């Protein structure tokens, strides 16, 4: 199937687009893979998703003007992940609904603060627990967290990559961290 893609899809691509592709896409494969893996939950799926995204990027580069290459490619990866999950999973990634509501977080609840700074620090030492907690986040929160903490994107780039206003990015990130803290402070 990939060979077919290359023949039918990439065969018509101009040299200029190929060169833009070489400058933009291969340098960001590690970041793309990390995002796809955390969104799909599987390394094998992530490989398929990134390949699909790379092909989409190559086709788009025939005409696209790219200002922020990293965010641009990660946006394609993210969209490829969404389509891929919708096609291949019984439970597609749910991005809609409620995740941007800051009111649901109570990080300065006195009980919450006094509850367990030690518990948090102890849990934070347990890699497996931390990774499970990240995987348990709602997709929109996980995505913001991965782009920020694992891929090191600035807010502006995250907003670009997720096609989301910057204020929403900020509240998702805040909510992702607060939720992680709560999970880690709870019982193992």
């Amino acid at each position, binding site marked *: 199937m*990939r060979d077919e893609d290359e023949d039918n899809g*990439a*065969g018509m*691509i101009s*040299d200029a*687009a*190929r*060169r*833009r*592709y*070489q*400058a933009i*896409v*291969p340098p960001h*494969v*590690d*970041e*793309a*893979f*990390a995002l796809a893996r*955390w969104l799909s939950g599987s*390394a094998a799926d*992530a*490989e398929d998703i*990134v*390949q699909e995204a*790379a*092909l989409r990027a*190559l086709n788009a580069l025939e005409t696209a003007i790219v200002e922020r290459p990293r965010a641009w490619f990660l946006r394609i990866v993210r969209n490829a992940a969404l389509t891929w999950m919708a096609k291949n999973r019984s439970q597609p990634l749910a991005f809609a609904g409620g995740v941007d509501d*800051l*009111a649901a*977080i109570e*990080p*300065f609840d006195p009980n919450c*603060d006094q509850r367990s*700074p030690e518990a*948090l*620090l102890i*849990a*934070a*030492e347990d*890699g497996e627990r*931390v*990774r499970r907690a*990240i995987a348990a986040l709602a997709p929109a929160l996980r995505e913001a967290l991965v782009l*920020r*903490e*694992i*891929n090191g994107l*600035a*807010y502006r780039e995250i907003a670009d990559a997720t096609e989301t206003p910057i204020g929403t990015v*900020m*509240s998702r*990130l*805040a909510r992702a*961290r*607060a939720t*992680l*803290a709560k999970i*880690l402070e709870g019982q193992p």
Partner: protein
Amino acid sequence: MSDSDRRDDRLLRLNAALDNELDATHRLELDRELEHDPQARAGLNRLSAVSDAVRRHAPREAAPASLHAAVAALARPRQATGRAYLPLAAALAAGVVIGAASQGLLVSSRAPDPVAATLTADFARAELADRPYDIASSDRHVVKPWLATRAPIGVEAVDLADKGYPLAGGRVAVIGATPAPTLVYQRREHWIAVTEMPLSLASGAAEAHSTALDGFHLIRWADRERGYVAVSDIDADELAAFVAAFRAAIGSAGGEAR
């Protein structure tokens, strides 16, 4: 502002502080707040512990090599596997390639070596940045000393303007850790970069090897104890003609001090 709005606002600011996204004024404001407010400090510590845990336990791992290879291969022109040297072969058959044929021009489809990969990437980057050279000058007496102060080996900046390749400038490519002087010539709207390097970095063979890599054409050869690589986006046979002209000019400039 309601209490809950204030709380939300502070939470966002703490996160933004952690992410270095606060401007100086807001950062100062928040620092003052943190001084007086133990709860805010505890909140920041908590966020910071979470952030730190994520970074430590979910570090970004490299994508599998197979994926890197697949992504890179996607935009590789089929030229690399056959189409590229058809025009060249035709040109050779017709005896069009000036000089190159007599000097034994070989076409190779071997896997690219690191020097070729480095110089191709360098060429692509320079072209993409619209800055094919670091010093712009058509005067070889300007380009040559500029390169001499930046690269360990001297370079022969030959004048090929009368052959249709005006000198456009020079830059320094870096191969591994070795700075290598690079001359940039112009051919219509295209660039041709010629990088000179010690023989230890070169392929060693005196014959010119032509390869295609990522949509660019490369020709490598060695002359007088120096290795050369020419990279361009012009056709393989045009590049061969350029290389022939360049080698002829270098040969006749042989007496010039090195």
